[in-house]
């Protein structure tokens, strides 16, 4: 729940643009962009994700660093389990 997971925006979805497909270590899931309305990310941008919502835009280097931090904390598997869990029954 308190994990911040870095993901890369692959595609903005829907007319309102409030959802996006992100990729986290090869796993693609939908996340909500509603909390970044003031500074909307574009495909190719990196974001930090909390509980299925993108909360902040970050650089690619910061994203790699964050993934490394999760690895050092022994939380990579937990993070990936969380990401795979987004969207429940979907793909």
């Amino acid at each position, binding site marked *: *729940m*308190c994990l*911040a997971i870095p993901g890369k925006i692959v595609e903005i979805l829907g007319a309102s643009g409030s959802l996006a497909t992100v990729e986290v270590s090869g796993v693609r899931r939908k996340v*909500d962009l*509603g*909390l*970044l*309305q*003031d500074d909307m990310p574009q495909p190719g941008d990196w974001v*930090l994700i*909390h*509980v*299925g*919502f993108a*909360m*902040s835009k*970050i*650089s690619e280097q*910061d994203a790699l*660093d964050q993934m*490394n*931090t999760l690895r*050092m*904390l*022994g*939380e990579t598997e937990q993070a990936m389990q*969380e*990401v795979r*869990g*987004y*969207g*429940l*029954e979907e793909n």
Partner: protein
Amino acid sequence: MKFVDEFRDAKMINKTAEEIRRLADSGRHYRIMEVCGGHTHAIYRFGLKDILPENIELIHGPGCPVCVLPMGRIDDGLSLANDPMVIFAAFGDMMRVPGRQGSPLEHKARGMDVRVVYSPSDALKLARANPDRHVMFFAIGFETTSPSTALTLIRAKAEGIRNFSVFCNHVTIIPAIRAILDSPDMRLDAFIGPGHVSTVIGCRPYEWIARDQRKPIVISGFEPLDILQSIVMILRQLRAGEAKVELQYKRVVPWEGNRAALQALADVFQLRPYFEWRGLGFISQSALRIRDAYAEWDSEQRFGIPGVRVIDPKAAQCGEVLKGVLKPAQCKLFGTECTPEHPVGALMVSSEGSCAAYHNYEHRKAAAGLSV
């Protein structure tokens, strides 16, 4: 210092540790509180205690939402879910937290419909998929998660999804810091401020800590180097006799926070007059309730809540540990009756709880051949 070699920037870490030793006055004992449970977890996991000089003591703060939730709230939430029409949805972190009649997971084993969700929007999705059931989302967390709950409620109302409600246990970090500073048995020199909470609230809400309480606070990232650099920044302030809010985690935290997230919070939630925190007691204006405009989606306004209060087991000294008065291992139950496998208190449940973090660290140390 056995973990240092794993670090990508081991050289920088050693350099920063040297700088800490240089800045720390050997005749002084420093008590620095890391507010956020994520930092507590990182500090133990990275073995930073072993890198720091002995006169720098890190006190673990209240920033673990699972740990500060009173047991009565878990019982309250589970009482609603006794209705077979109800699906009880919560984050995985909640599943092993003991209530009086067991944890959500134990209730599931007894036949209650308990589901793990990773996002509040997935709880809403459960409601869409089960129109003949009611989905209750057991919401917990500080400002890292409360905006997501807010937006989910906005979406539920906009879509007119009426078989969904939130049992709101969201808390806010600033009043907890105030309560700790007001506590007579607490002497602190400075704070390491929470990183991801601050992406939402920004840095201004901490200004009173520096201005009125004359305590430095540095908002920190979670890498070992981030935390050590934050300690350097704190020591520099203390040496200069200053007290400022400083931002070490600039690459992620904007000084003004996230306006869209703050707006969502303001639209959906208002402050409760008071809320009980495990270990800290009742703290005024320290938690969020759902505004009347969203009453239909508020489990508490929509259903009768028993309002259970449970006194923590006397032998467990969670309160003292939570306030930093006792170290985890000084609790009578630590490692014997209370373990991560069989937690008595919530500090042993979450990996961000100081007891679980300390317990796991001790085990890692032992497994590594006592060479710390």
